[in-house]
């Protein structure tokens, strides 16, 4: 078999693995707040997120084009090995931050890895820094701020509109009814998941397309092939369903205590900021937008608190994402420079690091059973009529069984 074909196949494989890690790293963006407020059961939440990501990945290719055509300067010979090395940096950083429960940006990890590998292969002149600043760096600075302002304003409005004075409550017994925002959260969180699929699903499509162009499989002006769209959509959906429970815990309860009205405002803000940015082909970080929204919503409620120490850790991780993944990407590029043997060593090292991180993470396992355990005042999960019926039937059956048992005991006496 042709070695060039094998290199391209390796690029496609690692890109899909990156897409998978991107999915489970970013499940929290859409589903952390509905899980924290009890709007959705954890497993149901990740299933909805997976479906919406799958659908979203098929909608549009503006972001994919930014990556496949806008990262490197014209005339730069982009090699598949370079793309492979870049992806290695992104995967390692994604897994490390997932292990630490830090919602860092998968997108910036990807850009950082590719930039690092590009510089290692062809020098600083190979990178289209102007395009990177416009499409990546500036949105990274502005998007979380915009999302935070939108979520802050929306949370304030929600609380003002549903407010009841103490006298009114005492006189009429009228409650605020803010628990009803949980139903709205079903839709707002789905919107975020859809937007995430549109934005992040396309990023992997862009990288695979870049690898295919670099390997000479398709021409530079060719669009994103259908099989690339399908495989990237499936990979991100599968990753989302796997659920990055550690990050869900951080986003749902570690950053701010979120009530249903805040959750609704935060998700609506995240979804609209991502979708509005996608129109202009800004490859922004959905994680940063979602974190900004949670902080904005946390500040928007009177008496609400943001855990600034956690927010500080997260922001620090954001600053490190680009350089750290660039360093891994560059180191990886140095290995792939050796040739096919270097590429194999690189691949084996990446797999070993991934397995090691997974193994260490098992010592302190976070999954759908304990993801909400640290949420202060977590509300009761909204149950569907079917679930209520089932629970009632189970309770009735248990009561019947107990009654039968006591009758038998009485008869024996």
């Amino acid at each position: 078999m042709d070695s060039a074909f094998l290199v391209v196949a390796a690029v496609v494989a690692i890109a899909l693995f990156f897409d998978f890690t991107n999915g489970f790293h970013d499940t929290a963006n859409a589903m952390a707040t509905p899980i924290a407020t009890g709007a959705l059961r954890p497993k149901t939440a990740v299933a909805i997120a997976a479906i919406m990501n799958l659908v979203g990945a098929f909608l549009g290719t503006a972001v994919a084009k930014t990556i496949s055509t806008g990262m490197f300067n014209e005339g730069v010979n982009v090699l598949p090995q370079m793309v492979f090395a870049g992806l290695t940096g992104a995967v390692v950083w994604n897994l490390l931050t997932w292990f630490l429960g830090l919602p860092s940006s998968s997108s910036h990890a990807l850009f950082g890895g590719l930039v690092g590998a590009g510089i290692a292969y062809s020098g600083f002149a190979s990178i289209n820094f102007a395009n990177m600043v416009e499409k990546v760096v500036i949105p990274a600075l502005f998007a979380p701020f915009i999302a935070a302002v939108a979520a802050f304003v929306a949370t304030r409005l929600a609380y003002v509109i549903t407010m009841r004075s103490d006298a009114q409550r005492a006189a009429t017994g009228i409650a605020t009814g803010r628990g009803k925002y949980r139903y709205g959260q079903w839709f707002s969180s789905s919107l975020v998941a859809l937007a995430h699929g549109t934005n992040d699903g396309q990023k992997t499509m862009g990288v695979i397309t870049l690898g295919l162009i670099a390997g000479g499989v398709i021409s530079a002006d060719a669009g994103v092939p259908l099989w690339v769209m399908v495989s990237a959509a499936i990979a991100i959906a599968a990753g989302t369903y796997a659920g990055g429970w550690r990050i869900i815990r951080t986003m749902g309860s570690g950053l701010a205590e979120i009530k249903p009205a805040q959750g609704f405002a935060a998700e609506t803000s995240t979804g609209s900021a991502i979708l509005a940015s996608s129109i202009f082909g800004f490859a922004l970080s959905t994680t940063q937008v979602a974190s900004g929204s949670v902080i904005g919503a946390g500040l928007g409620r009177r008496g609400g608190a943001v855990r600034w120490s956690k927010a500080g850790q997260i922001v620090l991780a954001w600053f490190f994402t680009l350089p750290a993944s660039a360093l891994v990407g560059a180191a990886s590029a140095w290995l792939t420079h050796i040739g096919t043997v270097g590429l194999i060593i690189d691949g084996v090292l990446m797999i070993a690091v991934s397995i090691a991180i997974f193994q260490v993470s098992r010592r302190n396992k976070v999954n759908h059973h304990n993801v909400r355990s640290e949420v202060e005042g977590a509300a009761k999960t909204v149950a569907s009529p079917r679930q209520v019926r089932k629970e009632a039937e189970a309770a009735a059956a248990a009561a019947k069984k107990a009654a039968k048992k006591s009758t038998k005991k009485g008869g024996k006496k």
Partner: protein
Amino acid sequence: MNIDWNKFEMVAIGAIGFTSFMVVVYSFGVRFLTNAQNQEAAAKKGDAKAARSELANRIAAYALFALSAAVLAYGVFIMFETMYTKK
């Protein structure tokens, strides 16, 4: 480097405006529905005024929920349409 700041401005206005509109519409829906639920007991006891008020509040609430769903769907439709037609 030529950064088109208008795009960022549009994203900011779009995101803040859309979010605020959606939350305001939904919040009024929540308020009306809560009003309706709190008048339910009196309406069931035969209080005609409470029954009328309960019905009006409920209709207003559901109309607002439907409006927020429609706006959400339309917003998503517009955005994806723009992405598809973009060269």
